[in-house]
């Protein structure tokens, strides 16, 4: 794989939006307030902390009229790309750009809202707007339209490996010179069905100790990537030098470890493979579950955290979660 320059990062999550908010959250300067949602499972009622992301600030960048037909999934994805492009300081216009949108579960809230229209109003009155936005690549379509991206667009779903496969594809497009720039990232949203599943799987787990402060999360993380060239100035966040599917395991030593300790398998995944690959035991550890909640693609915000270390600040202490 050729090295990929990371020119910009657009994170949106429970911590806020943009790298400044994300870094502040990593440093412990932002107090994350999960939304408490009542979920009823077979074991009774639970007040589940849900790490929601807010797409309303997107209106600072895009006129509300243009956003009115977009669901929360597409808005958060669009928000992530807008932030990544702004963070890069580059203009997509005139650049051959590709777009890759990865998601573990797609626009589930909209899919179930579409089913609501079928159940409440009957098959013949199902909502075309909800159906259109429930299709996996609707977010990519909205993003492409916003930026006038006429290069290749790819929507993919590969569970916890979704970001890995997105980055491999971005690398292939750039290496093959199909495009000059790739907007590449992940998006997953919460809905109450997922909350029910998250809590129910946790209750079924024999090995995981239930922690009342843990909960599902949602968010988007997009990268502005280009081919690394010697003649170019050093990219803002350095380079992605290797991306490998998780069955290609070769241990590496890292200055710090990022983990996700509070997943709800099989709906989401922990950092088991990742931690196997980072054999050093005493390095500082960041637990992103305290910042983003439990996400179905755990590697997404890891990458942002790894690309944006805080040289002048200590890493936050291991979470009490």
């Amino acid at each position, binding site marked *: 794989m050729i090295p990929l320059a990371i020119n910009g990062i657009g994170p949106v999550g429970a911590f806020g939006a943009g790298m400044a908010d994300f870094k502040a959250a990593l440093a412990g300067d932002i107090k994350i307030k999960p939304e408490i949602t009542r979920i009823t499972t077979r074991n009774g009622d639970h007040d589940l902390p849900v790490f929601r992301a807010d797409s309303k600030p997107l209106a600072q960048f895009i006129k509300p009229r243009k956003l009115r037909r977009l669901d929360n999934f597409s808005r958060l994805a669009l928000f992530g790309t807008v932030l990544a492009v702004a963070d890069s300081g580059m203009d997509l216009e005139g650049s051959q750009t590709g777009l890759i949108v990865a998601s573990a579960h797609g626009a*589930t809230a909209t899919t179930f809202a579409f089913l609501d229209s079928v159940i409440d109003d009957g098959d013949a009155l199902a909502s075309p707007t909800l159906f*259109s936005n429930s299709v996996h690549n*609707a977010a990519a379509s909205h993003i492409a*339209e916003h930026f006038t991206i*006429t*290069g290749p667009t790819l929507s993919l779903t590969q*569970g916890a490996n979704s970001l890995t496969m997105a980055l491999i594809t971005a690398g292939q497009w750039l290496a093959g010179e199909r495009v000059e720039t790739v907007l590449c990232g992940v998006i997953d949203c919460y809905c109450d*069905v997922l909350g029910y599943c998250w809590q129910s799987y946790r209750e079924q787990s024999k090995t995981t100790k239930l922690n009342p402060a843990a909960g599902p999360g949602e968010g988007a993380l997009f990268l502005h990537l280009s081919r690394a060239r010697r003649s170019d100035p050093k990219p803002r966040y350095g380079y992605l030098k290797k991306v490998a599917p998780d069955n290609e395991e070769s241990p590496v030593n890292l200055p710090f470890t990022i983990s996700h300790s509070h997943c709800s398998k*099989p709906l989401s995944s922990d950092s088991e493979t990742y931690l196997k690959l980072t054999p050093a035991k005493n390095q500082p550890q960041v637990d992103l579950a305290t910042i983003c909640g439990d996400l179905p693609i755990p590697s997404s915000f890891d990458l942002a955290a790894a690309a944006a270390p805080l040289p002048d600040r200590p890493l936050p202490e291991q979470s009490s979660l």
Partner: protein
Amino acid sequence: MKVRISGIGALCACGLDFTTATAALFQDRRDPVPARRFKLDHPLPYPVFELPPSTLDAPDENQPWLRTSRLAVNAARAALADSSWEEIDTTAPNLSQLKVGVSIGTTVGGSMNDEKFYRDFREHKTPELQPITRYLQSNPAAVVAEVFNLHGPQLTVVNACSSGTDAIAIGTEWVKSGLCDVVLAGGSDELCRVTCNGFISLMINSTQPCRPFDEDRNGLNLGEGAAILVLESDNIYRQRRISRAENEQTLPQAFIAGSGSACDAWHLTAPHPEGRGLRRSLQLALDDAKITADKIAFINAHGTATKNNDLTEGKVLKEMFPETPYFSTKGHTGHTLGAAGALEAAFTVAMLQTHKIPRSSGFHKIDPEIGHAPTSSAQTVNGSFALSQSLAFGGNNSALIIGLEESLN
């Protein structure tokens, strides 16, 4: 590097195996009917192209995977057999020793939409998680990799109706770049009540058998199926030629000559009226194959039979390929969504190898707005390249050029 197509497995409404399905395209018989496996409640019936009854009809409740993944496994098994990978020669490599990837397009196969589960959830019945677990275990690429014990990259493409074409193009790049030695690439999709209601809500389904490119076309028929192509590097292919000698004598060898993909960046549900993205994807595919448009022997078009798709597609074909015969096979298969591009690429290979193309089923009268007619009868064609293209919801446009090599030197 040449990326060989060493095997094909496919199933759809006109055949549970690739040979039967391809032969059916040359017959006039087609009979879409209301779905057998689920009921829709609409004032008018909407016919679909459902797979013939088979063991694949077993209810999901008794299966570890969703039907979409079971169709993909079925097609992958047939493709591996067709490519002779099951005949392990001790002197040749076998799959377990190679980097083998899986790239599969789908729409339904990537959707969490179990209607019964959701109805129970709405009614506060705290439903069993089994349907969710089944969905989580059913990622089509992961299932195929698990069943055949493959250890390379796995990718499920969800680019709506161009997913199958895109999955093959991506698999081709994996082989070209050395990421994989072999890739199982294609698409798979089942008929699903949720998706049927969604398409009907968009008012693009026909209540009659569909008529792609016909002046009186009035919408699509949904279908289901799967197609998997075995793509392999020239190097691997040549190493195991010895075990494929018999097959090579019967049919010339096909390869992926080029691909192109471009987005309209125009509208969520409508193609760009001038086919901006389609033109670009076609030109990119021609450039990738290093050929000019006149080298294309025939075109397996997307041809859904919706007003918008066929108008845009027909106009672009008339301008870019005025002399090249084209047709849609959806009059026999229905629109199989994520499987469509893969099925059509598979049919394109078979037609290129046998030099025969079918009439465009359902077409009778030229649309003056298009001004360019698809095939009205089966034809013999000559040439070494053919095009298979897909236009998708969301503005995706993707094209594959299949090449033919008369002899392997």
